[in-house]
Every structure is written in structure tokens, then in C-alpha cells.
């Protein structure tokens, strides 16, 4: 028997938890079908997490694509169906991206599994990111330089620690609900060993013997602990660098692994810094959001004002 999991109309890091909650109620080897018919929008996190979910299943889940043409077209332009084709079973061939339409996709969904993939991603995104981040989002040129560095370090988490492959995607959109401004959003998801298993060999002995996903995330994201730290003091700088970048540009960072999620939360967002006892999900899922400067800040820096473009469908 196949269990149907309905995707929410708006699929992002928060609403993806609904998907995982539905999944947690099923046996691991249950046959599932993801029903995206009513989906209208998805963040890079939502799309890469869907691929990650498929990677964790013993047999390919079925997938019913969105019904709305503009949503279908947008998901195709993000590269979702190209990556999803070998992972899901589609009743009919998934749609191909159609050219000619302006895209908010800064980096289409790209598989990351080896160092060369990171080189390719950075090589592809540099020119385009400069044009969009400075031109459309009016970000400071220094933020643009740090953006590529942050993207590189986020991708390397997969290469160095996941023990398998994962995906990265970058998109700009207008954050309607929380911010009312445009943001650039990076999602990096894998279904690998996760932070708890990665760090368990180097964790400090604790009096209560406790060691769980939340503690592993605190060690990695807040304290910069790496599993290589005992033999190399230079390790663990990637996440520390990402945290500095996010803090400097008023951004938001969340990292989910296992049953916990930790976040560096800016004042414009009301998310919870540490969430535990979530539905289990293998690997690590990272999201980085950098907002367009507030109008007052942009005016103060002398930037030219431009009208923000609409959100993706």
C-alpha cells in the first residue's frame, strides 16, 4: 500500500516539517507518494529537502507535480525535475525548463559530492551573483564578495562531512510574510551522517553523558567544533565564517540535523534559536538568508533605489 504525503502550498524550511511529521508516522520501508498538486511556491530549502527525502527512502517515492502551470514552470527552471528524475517515480515525464522567462534562480539545484563540484558552483555563480546582489538587492559590494565564500564553505560541509552527496540551490525572492523585502537564499541539504554522528568521536565528556542532535549542532555552529579538531586546529572555520558573514549582513542561518534545528536569528525574524524533538531526518540541512538592506540603511549608504521585483509563484 502506498501512503500519500501531501505537500503544503508553500514549501519552505518551516512547512517542510509538516512533511517530515507525516513521514515519521510511517515505517521506514513504506511506499510513499509525494503529492505536490496544490503546491504554489517552494524555497530552495523546500526543493532540495525534497530531493534529500527521496535519497533516504529504500525505494523511489512516487511524485505528483504541481498543477499550476507557473509553479510547474518555476520548479523546472530551478532544476528540480532534472535532479528529481532519477530519485522519484513520475507517472509521466517531468516538465523541462522553458527558456525566455526572467528567472530568480541564482543557482539552479546542483548536486555536490566532490571538491570539483564546489569549484564549478563558485565559477558559475560569481558574475551572476554580483549583478543580482548589487544591482537588484542593493547589497554592499563587500557582502557580494563574502557571499561566494559563504556558499563555498556551505557546500564543503557536504564534501567534508556528509559521507555522501547533497544539493545546493540559490534563489532571490521577496520575503512577504516576515520581512517585506527581497532576500537571497542559499539552501544546502544532504542525507549523510549528520552532525551528531560526525562529531561523536570528538565530543567532550559530559557529566550527564548526554549527547544528542541539539548538542552536536551547538558544538558545530556556535563553538566551531570539527571532527578533525584533535589533529588540526585549523578545522571548523567554515561554519564560523558563515556565522560571521550572516551576523555582519543582518542575515539568518539555520541548520537542521537529526531531530534538532539551530539558528542565528536576526531581529527581523521571530524564529526560535534552538528547536528540539523534531521529526527525525538524516543528514544536515542548512539555510542562509541575506536580506536586501532596509530602505533607511540603503539611503544612508547612498545606494540608488530600485523597485523590488515580485515573488516567485
Amino acid at each position, binding site marked *: 500500500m502506498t501512503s500519500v504525503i501531501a505537500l503544503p502550498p508553500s514549501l519552505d524550511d518551516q512547512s517542510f516539517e509538516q512533511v517530515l511529521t507525516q513521514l515519521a508516522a510511517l515505517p521506514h520501508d513504506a511506499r510513499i507518494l509525494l503529492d505536490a498538486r496544490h503546491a504554489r511556491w517552494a524555497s530552495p530549502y523546500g526543493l532540495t529537502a525534497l530531493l534529500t527525502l527521496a535519497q533516504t527512502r529504500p525505494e523511489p517515492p512516487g511524485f505528483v507535480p504541481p498543477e499550476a502551470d507557473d509553479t510547474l514552470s518555476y520548479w523546472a527552471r530551478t532544476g528540480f525535475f532534472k535532479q528529481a528524475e532519477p530519485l522519484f517515480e513520475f507517472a509521466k515525464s517531468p516538465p523541462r525548463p522553458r527558456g525566455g522567462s526572467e528567472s530568480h534562480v541564482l543557482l539552479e539545484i546542483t548536486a555536490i559530492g566532490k*571538491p570539483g563540484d564546489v*569549484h564549478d558552483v563558485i565559477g558559475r555563480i560569481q558574475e551572476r551573483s554580483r549583478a543580482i546582489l548589487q544591482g537588484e538587492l542593493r547589497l554592499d559590494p563587500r557582502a557580494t564578495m563574502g557571499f561566494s565564500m559563504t556558499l563555498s564553505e556551505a557546500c564543503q560541509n557536504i564534501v567534508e562531512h556528509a559521507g555522501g552527496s547533497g544539493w545546493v540551490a540559490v534563489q532571490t525572492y521577496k520575503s512577504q510574510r516576515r520581512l517585506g523585502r527581497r532576500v537571497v537564499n542559499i539552501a544546502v541539504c544532504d542525507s549523510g551522517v549528520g552532525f551528531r554522528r560526525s562529531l561523536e568521536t570528538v565530543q567532550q565528556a559530559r557529566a550527564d553523558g548526554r549527547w544528542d542532535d541539539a548538542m552536536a549542532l551547538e558544538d558545530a555552529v556556535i563553538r566551531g567544533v570539527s571532527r578533525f579538531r584533535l589533529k588540526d586546529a585549523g*578545522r571548523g572555520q567554515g561554519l564560523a565564517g558563515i556565522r560571521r558573514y550572516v551576523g555582519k549582513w543582518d542575515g539568518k542561518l539555520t541548520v537542521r540535523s537529526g531531530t534538532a534545528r539551530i539558528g542565528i536569528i536576526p531581529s527581523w525574524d521571530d524564529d526560535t534559536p534552538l528547536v528540539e524533538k523534531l521529526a527525525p531526518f538524516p543528514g544536515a540541512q542548512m539555510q542562509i538568508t541575506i536580506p536586501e538592506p532596509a530602505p533607511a540603511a540603503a539611503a544612508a549608504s547612498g545606494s540608488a533605489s530600485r523597485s523590488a521585483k515580485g515573488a516567485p509563484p
Partner: protein
Amino acid sequence: MIHHIDVHTVLQRCVCDLYSNLVTRPTGVAVRTGIEQLLAAAPRQPTLTVIDFSNVGLLDYSCADEIVAKLLLQYVGEAGAPEGYFLFRGINDAHADAIEAVLERHGLALVAQRVGDARVHLLGVVDDGERLAWEAIADRGLVSSAELATAACFPVADAAQLLDALYRRRLVMQLDGGYVALGGMQ
């Protein structure tokens, strides 16, 4: 003797001739190994090596750690460390961000020339006394401890100690019985 190493050329020779960005730790290891091979082939005498980043696009933290910090760590500190000196040239703001972060992690410092600026600067972890002494040396060229003491208003013993510390950190070279800031005698 001044030895010049173009990091972009090393990257293309050791990793891939299509790459211009220094990203990922394996890339950093390969480039540092390439630099070490060039250093090993150089004459065995105190040598100033210019490590030139001018043609490098992005430098991420992992590569900064592997190339810059791990290279420096072999040369600084303990007695018996090889006597070599490094001037890091063509450093842009983004390179400097990554390099500063890794230097801080290891408690290191280096001498850099920023893009479009012929002057030399310190990057990394230095205390106020070391910075004051180093800047006085950079301004004056070759100095003795007595000259530094006069120039920076230090007691002679303190000046001698600071010069020794800067020398052990490979931020100044010993030359003709005095000390000179890296890049100050090119």
C-alpha cells in the same frame, strides 16, 4: 634573494588549468604542496618569497587555512624552524577577510601588500608593542635595536626583545647586523 610565486599559476598547474578560485580544502592542500615544492627547489639560504595572490579570484577559509596558515606554521616560533620569509602580495579585501580569520585562529601574523597599494601592512594577531615596533622599522628600513629604541621611545632591552619576537614570527629579517621589515628592502 627574492623568490616570486604566482599562486594562480600553482593552482592551474597542481589542480586544474580552468580554475581561478581557491576553494575547498583539497585544493588548498594541493596548492600548498606545490608552493612547498617550489620552495624546496630554491637555494638554501634565508630567502624572501613573495606569495602573489593578484590573479586569484575567491579565497575561502579552507584554502586560506591550508595555504597561508599551514605554510607559515612551518616557519615561525620554535628554534630550528627553517629560515624563510613570506610577503603576501595582491591581497584584496575578500582575501584579507579569509586570511585574517585563519591567522586569528592560529595566533599568526604576516606581512601583506594590498591590491593597488605598494606599502606593506601587518595582517593577523600582533600586540600593540609589536605593531609599533614593526611600523617604526617599516618606516626606517634597516635598524638596530638601539635605533628602534630611539625611534619608538622604547628602552633598549624592550626594543631588542620586540625585534627578537618579530624575527621569530618572521615579520622582520635579520640583515647586516640589523633588522628590516619584509618588503622594506625590495
